[in-house]
């Protein structure tokens, strides 16, 4: 590529702006010698510089100064590092929620059982009742504690109705035998 005969094309111009070292050596040497190509490159670079300059110029400035930001950051960091104190509201909320749950649980009516559970409970209650009735009947038979029949000589089990009727016959029995 002779410097006076050829000039860099559009693609080479863009590569030159991106990174001149990526151009072939011959093109690089042409670019360093050719004022026309150098001017093209300079114009594109200038345009891009203007773009950056305008963006900078037309962007607003932050209202707060860097020093203010620094103090705000410090305050925020300190606020975050307050440790347990910063957790107070969280703990208080958890406590209130827990209190409400326990309160509701204590005051709520018992949960209804299923039919199987009800049947089982009824059977259990009936068994307990039956046992209780047997105890009552036993007391009807002999309300005294076991020690009393022993003392009075009534602990002998053979004294059933037939024996007593033999010893002291009932009036009906006597009439029949006569």
């Amino acid at each position: 590529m002779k410097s006076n005969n050829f000039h860099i094309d559009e693609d080479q111009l863009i590569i030159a702006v991106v990174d001149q070292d990526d151009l072939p050596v011959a093109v690089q040497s042409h670019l360093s010698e050719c004022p026309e190509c150098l001017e093209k490159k300079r114009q594109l670079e200038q345009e891009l510089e203007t773009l950056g300059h305008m963006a900078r110029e037309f962007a607003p400035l932050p209202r707060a100064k860097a020093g203010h930001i620094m103090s705000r950051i410090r305050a925020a960091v300190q606020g975050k590092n307050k440790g347990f104190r910063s957790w107070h509201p969280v703990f208080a909320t958890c406590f209130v929620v827990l209190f409400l749950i326990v309160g509701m649980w204590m005051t709520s009516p018992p949960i209804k059982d299923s039919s199987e559970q009800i049947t089982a409970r009824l059977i259990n209650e009936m068994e307990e009742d039956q046992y209780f009735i047997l105890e009552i009947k036993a007391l009807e038979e002999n309300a005294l504690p076991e020690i009393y029949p022993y003392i009075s000589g009534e602990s002998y089990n053979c004294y059933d109705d037939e024996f007593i009727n033999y010893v002291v016959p009932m009036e009906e029995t006597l009439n029949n035998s006569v």
Partner: protein
Amino acid sequence: MAACANKIAALVEKAKANDKDSQEQLVDIFYQDIFRMVYYRINSRMDAEDLTQEIFMQMFKSLPGLKEPARFRSWLFMIALNRVRDFYRKKSVMAFFDKTKQPEDADLPDTEDSDNPVSYVMRKEFWKQFHAFTDTLPKGEREVFTLRFVDHLGIREIAETLKKNDSTVKTHLYRALKKFRQTPELHSLLEGEAL
């Protein structure tokens, strides 16, 4: 340039050791750059101020984990870009629930020369043309173009910021520049300004 980079690296080292002066100096140096960088992308002064504060808070939080202080600038821009992405994510979620259009303050006169009508019109026209052009670019090309020519980052810094290799960055830049050359409106605006 190298001296400046060395100075920043030294400040970063001190800031990592919780040196308050160095931390303040770092904020001083980068505050406006980061604010502008955010503003170019979200077009709202108020949101840009809030985000800038969050970015610096994140910077102080993550600073002890920075292994190479020499890469501080690209690292800071990476934080800023992530914050901007988060902002857009949140915004899209909010927009999903709230269909009423939120007024953006892009058109509000919030620069120092807002009382000058000519400047106001020029500013409005510039941003209109700028966004009209950048909106036509794919995401990668747009980001690389803006970082290179508006935020003035080098190829290496852009590669570090976007976690891409140099050749990918150059390819994006090449494509974006090719499209830039074919945008007459922005061209004429810039040529008019350059004259």
